[in-house]
């Protein structure tokens, strides 16, 4: 697979490390009433879709940026690559 890095252009997937579903960006509030349930969901349960999947890739052998890659899990076709920090900020995360 070739991942089209937003800053560096097309890079081979072997330069990257895979983490998982991009919902891992949305870390729950540890002080909330339902924190234990929310962290169980966050840490262990997955949508695991057959089709379009947003996922976190780390450019370990490159510029060490985190990317959110939108990829089809049935065909391996990559339709979108964004910097994870841009995605996180768009979702209201400050850091």
């Amino acid at each position, binding site marked *: 697979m070739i991942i089209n890095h937003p800053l560096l252009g097309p890079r081979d*997937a072997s330069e990257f490390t*895979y983490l998982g579903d991009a919902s891992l960006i949305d870390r729950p509030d540890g002080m909330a009433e339902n924190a234990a349930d929310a962290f169980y969901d966050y840490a262990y349960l997955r949508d695991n879709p*057959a089709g379009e999947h947003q996922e976190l890739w780390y450019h370990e052998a490159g510029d060490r940026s985190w990317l959110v890659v939108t990829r089809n899990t049935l065909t*391996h076709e990559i339709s979108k690559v964004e910097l994870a920090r841009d995605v996180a900020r768009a979702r209201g995360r400050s850091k």
Partner: protein
Amino acid sequence: MRYSGFRVIKEALTGHKGWKPVWREPEPKPHYDVIIIGGGGHGLATAHYLSKVYGLRNVAVVEKGWIGGGNVGRNTTIVRSNYLLDGNEPFYEFSLKLWEGLEQDVNYNAMMSQRGIINLFHTDGQRDAYIRRGNAMILNGADAELLDADQVRAEHPYLNFDDARFPIKGGLVQRRAGTARHDAVAWGYARSADLHGVDIIQNCEVTGLRIENGTCLGVETSRGFIGASKVGCAVAGNSGRVMGMAGMRLPIESHVLQAFVSEGLKPVLPSVITFGAGHFYVSQSDKGGLVFGGDIDGYNTYAQRGNLPVVEDVCEGGMALMPMIGRARLLRMWGGVMDMSMDGSPIIDRTPVQGLYFNGGWCYGGFKATPASGYCFAHLLAKDEPHPVATAYRLDRFRTGRMIDEKGAGNQPNLH
């Protein structure tokens, strides 16, 4: 029709006109006591034990394609019980004992070959870990034997013992481990289940689960609705999709594992061998091909094919372990979709939906577990309580903190 040597001779003398198809192709009935979704190794084994051991006859297996066409048809056929943890080892040892009697039980030649497995170690730390594992196996009634480098050399002289970085220091052996003919396992279970009255319904894709007031009433399929008192799901890589029909999210990601077969060679490997310094394992099939594999690719996928970086990694592991493999040509390679769980261990349990049961999360170790998985799932379906050797395989163990994490890798499925 029972298979036997006498039968083979009789058929040989009468022109082989007496062989019959080994299972029926029934139309689905409107209602079953138990429906098993998934006609793979685990689903068919469940049907066999449900009907033969637990006496349930009104049972159906529904399969979207042809039986045995999923992971039971695309694994590396290894059978073993060399696990460490209390939640796992009794289960896998139970499975190995069932393997030892499988062919007599189902009256089908599964070419079970107890040629042994050796896990090589390359450092003192690894040796200590294998001693601990071997002791855990022995405590649970399995067999384990520690070999030093000279003993390994006597059995496997062709290995790369004096590698500068990863010299072979010895190995942990399980002599009762081995290989079995994977397709024959599925066919043998299917034939036995069919003989005990189970309907095996192929080309029948489950498109939905009919759930009313928290109770599962049956399955919607491409051949219409089929009612059931209990529905068991054993669909491996597609677990997330099927259980998603019940609105459930699972502690599972689907990943691809690749496997490889070389051209046929003269007998060179006496047993299954695993490399301790990289992810590579190999055995030789009875046809002579070297059957080998390594790590999963590491990203979510439902495509039954992988990518080249892992092919390179596996072949490098092979060259590091046994350089002679470089002379063999690769004949075939393929991928299977693994239901990778969050601790690397499986789930056999009830679900929050009444009448819906789940069997999955087998990661890349489902084949060796086939008999025990079927037996324990049948026990759960028949008696509504877990089998004694499968009590740790709870669906909610991640919520309660009772993970069974052989590798200690945490909730990162691509590291298990």
